[in-house]
C-alpha cells in the first residue's frame, strides 16, 4: 500500500500551558479535497503552520508521502510540494502583480518560459488588466487572487487554503469555488473556511476542529446535520 499524501501522528503545539493543537491524527489521500472548519481559536491556522514548517510541533510528526517533515524548514517543505495561502494575504505588497507571479514562477522556470507562464497565470486569476499595478494598492479580494496565483505558480502537490473566500463578494466567492474545484482535478487541497455557502459549493469530506483536537470527520451532509457540530460552531449560520 502506498503512503497517504499527508498524515499526522499525535501532532501537538503547546504554547506554555495552552494546547493550541493537541494530539491531532489526520490523514489526507492523494488528490483529495478536504474542508476544515471549527470556531475561532480551534487551532486550524496553527495546524497549517505546522504543516508548512512555520511552526515546529511540540510533539508528534507530519508525514508527507511517508517522509517526516515535522522539523524541516519552510522553504524545504515548499520545495517538496506543499503550497499555502495564508489567512491574511501574504504577498509582495511593494511589487507589481506581474513581478509577484514572476517571483513564484522563477523558482522552477527561467527566461522566456517563465514569462509565458506568468502571462498564463495572470489570465487564469483574471488579473491581466492589472498586471502592472502595485499589489499593495489592490482591493482585498484581488490580493487574495494574487496570492492564489503565487501558490499555483510553484506547482505544489498539496495546496492549503486558509479562508480563501474571506472578504470576497458573492460573485468572487463563486469564482473561487470554481477555481478550487478546477485545481482539485489535479491536486489535493485542504481548505479552512467559515463561509458555509462556500463549504457547500466545494466540500465532500469535512473535518471539524474544536479546542485543538478533531471533533468529528464526516461527509459534508452529515456534518451539517450533526447536532454536536451545530452546538459548538454552526448554530445560526446553518439554520439560515
Amino acid at each position: 500500500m502506498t503512503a497517504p499524501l499527508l498524515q499526522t501522528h499525535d501532532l501537538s503545539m503547546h504554547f506554555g500551558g495552552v494546547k493550541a493543537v493537541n494530539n491531532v491524527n489526520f490523514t489526507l489521500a492523494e488528490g483529495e479535497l478536504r474542508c476544515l472548519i471549527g470556531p475561532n481559536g480551534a487551532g486550524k491556522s496553527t495546524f497549517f503552520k505546522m504543516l508548512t514548517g512555520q511552526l515546529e510541533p511540540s510533539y508528534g510528526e507530519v508525514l508527507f508521502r511517508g517522509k517526516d517533515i515535522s522539523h524541516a524548514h519552510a522553504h524545504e517543505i515548499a520545495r517538496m510540494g506543499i503550497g499555502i495561502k495564508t489567512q491574511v494575504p501574504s504577498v509582495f505588497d511593494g511589487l507589481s502583480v506581474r513581478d509577484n507571479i514572476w517571483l513564484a514562477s522563477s523558482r522552477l522556470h527561467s527566461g522566456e518560459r517563465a514569462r509565458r507562464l506568468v502571462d498564463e497565470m495572470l489570465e487564469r486569476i483574471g488579473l491581466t488588466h492589472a498586471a502592472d499595478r502595485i499589489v499593495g494598492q489592490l482591493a482585498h479580494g484581488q490580493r487574495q487572487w494574487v496570492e492564489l496565483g503565487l501558490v499555483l505558480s510553484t506547482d505544489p502537490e498539496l495546496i492549503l487554503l486558509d479562508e480563501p473566500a474571506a472578504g470576497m463578494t458573492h460573485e468572487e466567492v463563486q469564482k473561487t469555488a470554481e477555481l478550487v474545484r478546477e485545481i482539485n482535478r489535479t491536486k489535493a487541497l485542504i481548505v479552512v473556511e467559515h463561509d458555509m455557502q462556500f463549504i457547500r459549493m466545494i466540500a465532500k469530506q469535512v473535518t471539524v476542529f474544536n479546542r485543538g483536537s478533531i471533533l468529528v470527520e464526516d461527509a459534508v451532509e452529515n456534518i451539517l446535520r450533526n447536532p454536536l457540530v451545530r452546538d459548538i460552531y454552526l448554530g445560526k449560520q446553518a439554520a439560515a
Partner: protein
Amino acid sequence: MNGRTLNLLGLVLVGIIGLAVMWLTPRLAELDTVLDLTVYMIMAILALSLALIWGYGGILCFGQSAFFGLGAYTYAIAMFNIGESTVPFLLAIILPAAFAALLGYFMFYGRISDVYLGVITLTVTLILFNSVNSTAGPEFHIGAARLGGFNGIPGIPPLNWPFNKNAPIDLEGMFYLSTGALLLTYFGLRLLLASQFGRIIIGIRENERRAELLGYDPRAYKLGTFTIGGALAGFAGCLFANWGNFVSPTIFGLAQSAQIIIWVIVGGRGTLIGPVIGCIGIQWLSAALGANQPSGGSDLWSKIFANAPLILGVILIAFVLLVPKGLVPTLGDLGQMLLHARRDRKQRSLSPQQAE
C-alpha cells in the same frame, strides 16, 4: 513614456554625466579639486555597498565601516609585505568578503532579528576599532608591516598597473580609477538587481515569509547579498588607503559607520543613485563648512555655521522627520504627481470636445 524607457533614460544619463565628469575634471580643475573629488568617488562606492545590502537586501548593517577598514588595512599590510599591488588589491576585496561571509553566516543562519543585526555589526566595527587602536607598540606587526595603533599606517605604497611594479598610478590616475570604479560598481549593481538573484532579494525584503513559503531560502540570499556588500566596501577601502597613502583606526570608528548610514538615508533607500548623490553632497557640504572654520567670526551665527557635525546632525534629523524616504525617491514621487496632474488636466480639457 512608460517605466522602462524612463529607466533606460536614467541609465544613459548617469553614464553620460559620469563619463563627462571623468573626462572633464582633470582638464578643467586644479589638482586639489581633483584630489577632493577622488575621495568623494571612493566614498560613493562605499555608499553603494550599503545601498545594496540595506536598501535592497533589507539588512540593517550599522558596521559597514568594518569591511571598509579591513579592505584598507589589508591593502596596507599586504603592500608592505609584497611590494607589488596586484595581490594586495585582490586580498583587500577577498578578505573583507570572507569576513562578511563568516559574520553573515552566524547572523543569518542563527536567525538573528533585524535590531540585533544592527547591534552586532556596530559592535564588530567598534571591536575592530579598539583592537587596532591598541597596537601602537613595535611588537605589533604583520610581517614587515607595523600596525601603528592609533597612529595608523603612513606611507602606504600606491597601486601599480597589474604585475608591473615600476608603473605606479599617479594622482590623476587615481581619479580616473576611482571614477571608473564607481561607474562600474553602479552599472554592475544595476545588472545584479535586474537579474533573478536581485529580484529575489527584493522579494525577500518585501516579504520574507512569503519568499520562504515559495521555496526560497532567505538565509542563503541574505548571506550572498551581505558578502557582495562586504567585498564592495573592502574594494572602496583599498582605494581609500591609496588615496591618502594612509590608514588609521578611525576608519572603523563610530563617526565613519554613522556617516555611511546618513548618506543612504539622505539619498534614499531602495535606489542606487540616491546614496551616491547623498554621499557626494554631504561630503561636499562637510568640506565647505569645514573650510569656514579658521576665518569664522566671533558672532553666534558664524560659530554655528562653522560647526560641521552640528549642521550635519540637523540635516539628518530634518531628513528623517520631513523626507523619510530620502532625496531621490521623494523627487520621483513629486515628478509622478506632476505628471498625473498634467494628464488629468489634459483629460479634463479633452472631455467636453469628445462629448460633442
